[in-house]
């Protein structure tokens, strides 16, 4: 394969659609006779519904139906996500088929009317009363505490040597507790589903990161064959994990459509998303690290508790980064969950690695001051030669290269080591850094490739575009595999009528789909070769032929061959196609496969008001070969930006009495806005991983990892105040004790 297109900073193939307003997202699909649905949601966290009074709503102008647990058709509850079969089950709560309330904001009624205004008005006329029970709402509540049997496929507890003993024996050490609150994804596109029945067949346009999961979920709920459910999501307005499973609105829209016998559109209001879609759970972690006087780690402990739901078993794997980053003879890692009566938590950008690196990388920074060793140097000293907990060789670890690259681009050497030693006028200046990391995940994938007699190609896979640039990168990959110019290749995605793809999660999509496209192109070679019954390719076996320059060429005589178009034309065919399905290999068992990075942050802190401004941020990454330099950079920028929000702004606040989220809107749940975000620079090492398809790694999530720690470390450097709880608000900063 020649890499003509791969790696280039190509403009997005869907860019024109997106800048002209022609791009259509889920809620923008129209059907004749479409009705609008609005949800009524619970105002308690736990209990039973005593009464639902719908008379006024039913009578209101334009109302077609009001659906409650009293009159809703029964639905079967599917397996939760993560089981054997593809499933996108978000929670096992039988929403709208029960009088039980499991969390604040749970849907308890649907109002369907001719217009959105009528449905919204009538929804306000529904009166619900409850028998309330005490709810568990915090990490310290009486919720059920569980040590999970496994976390994904890994053991929950990892123990090497005697970490507690080594910690006790050490004199240079840190032993501290770090906290992260609940965060919410807040993709700007509201969760929405348009559902239309055609007899026993169902079509949904959904804000989904996993159309095949939605298909499976709806098929089970409504007792249909999966083939009778079509889920579409070719464009998603941001997901970040929040659209990874089927939240209740995804099946309540088809339920409503069934009841009224016409197509229904259901769009959640912004505040409803906080109650109908899980966020990142709150986590409290203890991290203890010790080192000898040369900076070599002697003990590493990370243990803590994350929240989960009473109707799911989500485990945020925050101890995962510590399993692979640093050499240390004594390691102890473990975690437990506490089940809360809140909307069940879910994946949010870099689940595990994001909060895990906040705690771990903050603790290492604290240790560096004790050791009087530069934080970058500390991470050089503890570079492992094999995976520190599994013992597996690294597939292609280039962390030190990323660290050096970042330090140089950032100008780390201008940093003076003492806290409060740098200033700009009355502003305190701080420079901090932290490690970023994210695993390489690969999932099953399939793709279809068709070449046409007019010289074009269409490549299809039911994967997802939510801003990552999926169609663009896969167009580049397919163009190079086929030897065609990118303009001749079209990539189609986000539809269960296309070949199967997994959830757009775990930063796994690029390589999972690329492997399938590559296998489909290999299949296509055989298919087209059979049509070459005359000319230079006649009678050759596939092994004697290579795909190149938009056609097939002899390997023994590279000049001799024929284009796909010409073979097809001669054979009197319009097109030829092939499909392939590829499972991930055993590479993840054999190698320790991860991406790495180093995040560098400069802050200005007002010493009197405790306000923190990030003035510069540099991230340098080791992510294998980059598929598109332009969209890759955007992914890093986006991850870093969300990390800045986590560090300084974002927190989901819950009223401890009722469980109501009190800042369920974009004014009070503060996400970074233009004025919060400085110039950000992103660099990458670019060394292809020999053990992944295309030599690539996923890049959607690593950008957020380590960012909050880099900010917290810069804030400490500026102020001598260590804040172990994000977001670092002025009040938290000024309340923290001051060193130096």
């Amino acid at each position, binding site marked *: 394969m020649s890499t003509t297109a791969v790696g280039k900073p190509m403009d997005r193939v869907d860019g024109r659609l997106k*800048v002209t307003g022609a791009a259509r997202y889920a809620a923008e699909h129209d059907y004749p006779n479409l009705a609008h649905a609005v949800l009524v949601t619970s105002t308690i966290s736990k209990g039973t519904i005593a009464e639902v009074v719908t008379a006024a709503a039913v009578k209101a102008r334009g109302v077609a139906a009001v659906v409650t647990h009293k009159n809703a058709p029964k639905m079967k509850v599917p397996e939760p996500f993560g089981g054997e079969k593809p499933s996108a089950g978000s929670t096992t709560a039988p929403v709208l088929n029960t009088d039980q309330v499991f969390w604040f904001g749970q849907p308890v009624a649907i109002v369907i009317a001719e217009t959105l205004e009528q449905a919204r008005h009538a929804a306000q006329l529904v009166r619900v009363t409850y028998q309330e029970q005490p709810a568990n709402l915090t990490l310290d509540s009486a919720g059920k505490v569980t040590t999970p049997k496994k976390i994904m496929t890994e053991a929950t507890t990892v123990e090497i040597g005697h970490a507690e003993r080594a910690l006790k024996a050490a004199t240079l050490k840190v032993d501290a507790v770090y906290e992260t609150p609940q965060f919410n994804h807040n993709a700007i596109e509201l969760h929405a589903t348009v559902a239309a029945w055609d007899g026993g067949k169902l079509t949904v346009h959904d804000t989904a990161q996993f159309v095949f999961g939605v298909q499976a979920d709806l098929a089970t709920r409504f007792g249909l064959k999966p083939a009778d459910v079509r889920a579409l999501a070719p464009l998603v307005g941001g997901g970040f994990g929040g659209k990874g499973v089927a939240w209740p609105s995804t099946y309540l829209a088809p339920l409503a459509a069934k009841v009224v016998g016409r197509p229904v559109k259901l769009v959640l*209001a912004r505040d409803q998303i906080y109650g109908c879609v899980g966020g990142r759970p709150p986590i409290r972690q203890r991290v203890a690290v010790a080192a000898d006087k040369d900076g070599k780690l002697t003990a590493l402990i990370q243990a803590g508790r994350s929240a989960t739901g009473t109707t799911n078993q989500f485990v945020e794997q925050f101890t995962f980064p510590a399993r692979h980053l640093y050499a240390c003879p004594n390691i102890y890692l473990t975690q437990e969950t506490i089940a809360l009566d809140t909307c069940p938590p879910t994946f949010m950008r870099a689940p595990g690695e994001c909060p895990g690196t906040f705690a771990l990388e903050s603790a290492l920074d604290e240790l560096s001051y004790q050791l009087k060793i530069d934080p970058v140097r500390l991470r050089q000293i503890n570079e492992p030669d094999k995976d520190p907990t599994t013992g597996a060789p690294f597939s292609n670890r280039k962390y030190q290269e990323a660290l050096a690259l970042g330090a140089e681009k950032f100008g780390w050497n201008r940093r003076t080591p003492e806290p409060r030693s740098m200033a700009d006028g009355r502003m305190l200046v701080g420079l901090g850094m932290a490690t970023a990391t994210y695993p390489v995940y690969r999932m099953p994938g399939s793709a279809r490739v068709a070449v046409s007699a007019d010289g074009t190609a269409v490549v299809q896979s039911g994967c997802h575009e939510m801003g990552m640039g999926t169609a663009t990168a896969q167009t580049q990959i397919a163009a190079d595999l086929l030897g065609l110019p990118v303009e001749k290749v079209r990539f189609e995605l986000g539809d269960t009528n296309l070949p199967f793809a997994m959830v757009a999660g775990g930063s796994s999509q690029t390589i999972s789909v690329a492997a399938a496209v590559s296998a489909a192109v290999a299949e296509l070679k055989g298919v087209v070769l059979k049509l070459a019954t005359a000319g230079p390719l006649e009678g050759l076996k596939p092994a004697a032929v290579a795909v190149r320059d938009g056609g097939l060429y002899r390997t023994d005589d590279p000049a001799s061959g024929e284009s796909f178009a010409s073979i097809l034309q001669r054979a009197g065919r319009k097109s030829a196609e092939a499909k392939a399905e590829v499972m991930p290999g055993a590479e993840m068992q054999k190698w320790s496969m991860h991406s790495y990075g180093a995040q560098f942050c400069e802050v200005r802190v007002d010493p009197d008001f405790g306000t923190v401004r990030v003035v510069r941020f540099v991230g340098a990454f080791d992510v294998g070969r980059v598929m598109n330099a332009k969209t890759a950079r*955007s992914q890093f920028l986006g991850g870093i930006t969300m990390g800045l929000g986590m560090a300084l702004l974002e927190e989901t606040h819950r009223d401890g009495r009722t469980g109501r989220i009190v800042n369920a809107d974009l004014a009070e749940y503060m996400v970074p806005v*233009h004025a919060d975000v400085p110039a950000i620079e992103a660099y990458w090492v670019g060394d292809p991983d020999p053990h992944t398809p295309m030599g690539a790694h996923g890049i959607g999530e690593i950008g957020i990892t380590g960012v909050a720690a880099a900010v917290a470390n810069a804030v400490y450097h500026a102020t001598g105040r260590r804040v172990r709880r994000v977001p670092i608000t002025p009040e938290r900063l000024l309340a923290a004790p001051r060193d130096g």
Partner: protein
Amino acid sequence: MAPSDDPDRRDFIQGVTAGGLALGLGAATSADPPADVGQPIPMKLTINGQDRELQIEPRVTLLDALREVLHLTGSKKGCDHGQCGACTVLIDGRRVNSCLTLAVAAAGGQVTTIEGLAKGEELHPLQAAFIKHDAFQCGYCTPGQICSAVGLMAEGHAKSDADVRELMSGNICRCGAYPNIVAAVQEVQQLAAKENP
């Protein structure tokens, strides 16, 4: 049909009157608004240079009129509360949150949406610059960002990158395309300044 013959309209007017009186007397329970509200009224909007006649309820926002009635779905809904900027359109050249504007209040003005910026196949310079600088990812905030940037340039206050950041802060991009948006806006602004000093 004459307005007075329309029972719904009569009920609506009576409802409003009764509600108003009841409010004055402090006798209404705010929990029980009149059940029969929302009588459609005719209105005329000018959108992207075209006159459009609508028959919609007075409570319909400009955003919902665009998206749900006229099927001009380029303007996006991200919050419906004036907090995200995804719904930004231009009315008489000024940027407004269409979710906070009743459609009826836009009557008589020139509404420009993202669909009205390109001249046929030729993109508006900001649209082209957004593609070049990859000033979006999912694209959902993008129509609002671009309309807002058109308004920003017309206002003429934003000179430095910091000015652009400050004056574009009503447009949230959760994908985090901010540095690229600033680059795109600055390139177009500076080019425009060179051409029309």
